[in-house]
């Protein structure tokens, strides 16, 4: 019996274990649990970015198909389950909705042989970092949280955020940079 998934509990990285079960054993019960948790969130993400309900569900299927087919490439040391699924959702949307290619870095693209990122201390570090990150995002001043959410949920580059909100570009950049400094702390605490 797999542990019940609880994304708010850093000691129980349930979604990560479920993904590993899908990768190792093609575990369809684990996949169903992941689907029940993530499908409504992926749908919400696509809806926020302008997809209508049926287009959003089409994208949910796309994303969950990739989750099933590529679960073996998930590495809990590098990313939490939500982060990994987020990057798939982001890229599928760019592909399908914007009809653009997403230029991505692949593992063997690195141009140097040395200076590689140190390996995390233990397997589920990414999930624990996500736990700290959630607290940092929750405590951002509203104007910083706002520019951050616009970037992720409204497909707006920072220049468009500036134009749309009538905020000078310099102010948008300052808010984003302040938010980024705070986010950074969530990672440094774990290091």
């Amino acid at each position, binding site marked *: 019996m797999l542990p019940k998934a609880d*994304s708010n509990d850093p000691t129980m990285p349930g979604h990560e274990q479920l993904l590993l079960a899908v990768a190792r054993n093609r575990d*369809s019960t684990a996949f169903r649990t992941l689907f029940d948790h993530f*499908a*409504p*969130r992926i*749908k*919400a*993400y696509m*809806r*926020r970015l302008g997809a209508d309900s049926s287009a*959003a*569900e089409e994208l949910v*299927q796309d994303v*969950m*198909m990739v989750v*099933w*087919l*590529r679960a073996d490439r998930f590495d809990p040391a590098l*990313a*939490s389950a*939500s*982060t*990994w699924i*987020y*990057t798939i959702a*982001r*890229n599928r949307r*760019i592909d399908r909705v914007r009809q*653009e290619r*997403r*230029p*991505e*870095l*692949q593992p*063997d*693209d690195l*141009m*140097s*042989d040395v200076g590689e*990122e140190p390996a995390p201390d233990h397997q589920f570090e990414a999930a624990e*970092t*996500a736990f700290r*990150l*959630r607290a940092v*995002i929750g405590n951002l001043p509203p104007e910083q949280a706002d520019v*951050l959410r616009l*970037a*992720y949920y*409204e*497909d707006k*580059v*920072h220049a*468009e955020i500036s134009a749309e909100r009538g905020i000078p570009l310099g102010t*948008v*950049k300052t808010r*984003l*940079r302040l938010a*980024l400094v705070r*986010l950074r702390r969530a*990672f440094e605490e774990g290091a």
Partner: protein
Amino acid sequence: MIVPAHHPAPELLLDYAAGSLREVQSLLVAAHLAYCPECRAQVAELEACGGVLLADLPPEPVSDSLFGTLMTRLDGAVATPPPVPAPAGKSLFPGPLRRAIGAEPEALEWVRVVPGVHLSAWGIGAGTASACLLRMAPRSRVPAHRHTDSEMLLVMKGGFSDEFGAYRVGDVASYDTGTPHHAVADADGECLCLLVQDQPLVFTGPLGWLLNRGFRF
């Protein structure tokens, strides 16, 4: 291997991780990541932020039939093969650019701008942004030009300097709208860059009228 000293602006990395950055600029960011452990770490952090925001979205119920439809589709699906490995021998191009171009520099066609300075015939454009390659012979100068919009250069071979700094392999030079600059290639070898622009440039100087007619770069 020296790590890059000049990086894309932090908000550009955010736009890349958030998925709002368009294809042309994303290509330059992804290509820089191949050289830069620091920016790779930052993008990974910003993707983790995307993961948290996704997990915290108020869920929207999906149709009851959706899981069943998906499982039927999965029955017919086969696992995708792993990505094609890089060709044997080191490519001069970082992976994301190599995949976008599909050729090595020696196989590309070049258009001469002024003696010693060439632009690739290869290019991509999307909206008002465009990308192509810039090749400079040792000590050659890019003609003075002013920008009607922003410009970024990623160095992939050799190096160049201008009034703002010296740029080596992996570095990104960024110029805002209306910033004239005078790039001079290093003396010790050819310099090859990925050039990304938003809006065409307007050349100034004696040959400007000619360049503006012939080349929208």
